[in-house]
């Protein structure tokens, strides 16, 4: 709570962040613990929408739109098709978890969270993100889509082309794998 009340911090932005973050963490826990595959996919939609909302709070509108289009639009449809084609039971299902899953996963996740939280707090404890005024006046990331296009098409052109081939190869590979002979 002390983070929310730090000096020079926009209170409304922080309250919004806190509410969305709480919803996201709850939904993510539901994704990994629910016994219903379709419910897990729907909880995942809430997490992805929360991530898009956080992008808007972080002044990354273009990434937020892409997140909604690609993840909530395309990837979730793929997941629902995957669930349907593998004939998952509609309703509660036993055996979604490993027998030893909790015993293995919980300590690993908790220790990892402790390490990450320690490193993050140690390194970035007092780092204040620029507020709304500084973003628009500094011109750094104000002209968002234009700046992104400039970056994609000049310094990051080679990874962009490689990415196009990755997508093409993935599409063809998925068709070859899933085709019935």
């Amino acid at each position, binding site marked *: 709570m002390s983070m929310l009340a730090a000096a020079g911090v926009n209170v409304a932005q922080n309250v919004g962040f806190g509410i969305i973050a709480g919803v996201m963490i709850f939904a993510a826990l539901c994704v990994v613990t629910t016994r219903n595959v379709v419910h897990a996919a729907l909880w995942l939609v809430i997490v992805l929408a929360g991530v898009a909302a956080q992008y808007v709070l972080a002044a990354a509108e273009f990434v937020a739109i892409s997140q909604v289009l690609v993840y909530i639009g395309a990837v979730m449809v793929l997941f629902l098709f995957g669930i349907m084609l593998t004939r998952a039971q509609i309703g509660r299902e036993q055996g979604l978890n490993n027998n030893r899953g909790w015993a293995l996963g919980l300590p690993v996740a908790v220790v990892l969270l402790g390490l990450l939280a320690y490193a993050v707090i140690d390194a970035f404890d007092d780092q*204040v993100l620029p507020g709304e005024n500084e973003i628009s006046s500094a011109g750094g990331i104000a002209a968002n889509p234009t700046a992104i296009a400039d970056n994609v098409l000049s310094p990051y052109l080679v990874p962009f082309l490689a990415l196009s081939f990755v997508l093409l190869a993935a599409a063809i590979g998925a068709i070859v794998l899933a085709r019935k002979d």
Partner: protein
Amino acid sequence: MLAVNFLLLGAVLFCIGVFGVLARRNAVMVLMSVELILNAVNLNLVAFALMHGNVDGHVFALYVIAVAAAEVGVGLGLVLLVYRNRRSIALDELSEMKG
């Protein structure tokens, strides 16, 4: 707004995703947990872009989104193939590679 807020949220989502990958038995659920991990990383990239006033992080986040879409496509293709051959997508039954 503090950078730690975003980074801690990313860390929590990442650990929840790691737990899902380790604890789930259904291959589709493991792919969903991988999506959680990728989104946590994207959140960090966007937060760093805001911190440094630089759009490079946004570009990286867009590339990660594209690679994640490709990964889900191929992953679900593999899952469908496994399901067609074995009538089950329980990951602990895929033990042919054990000697």
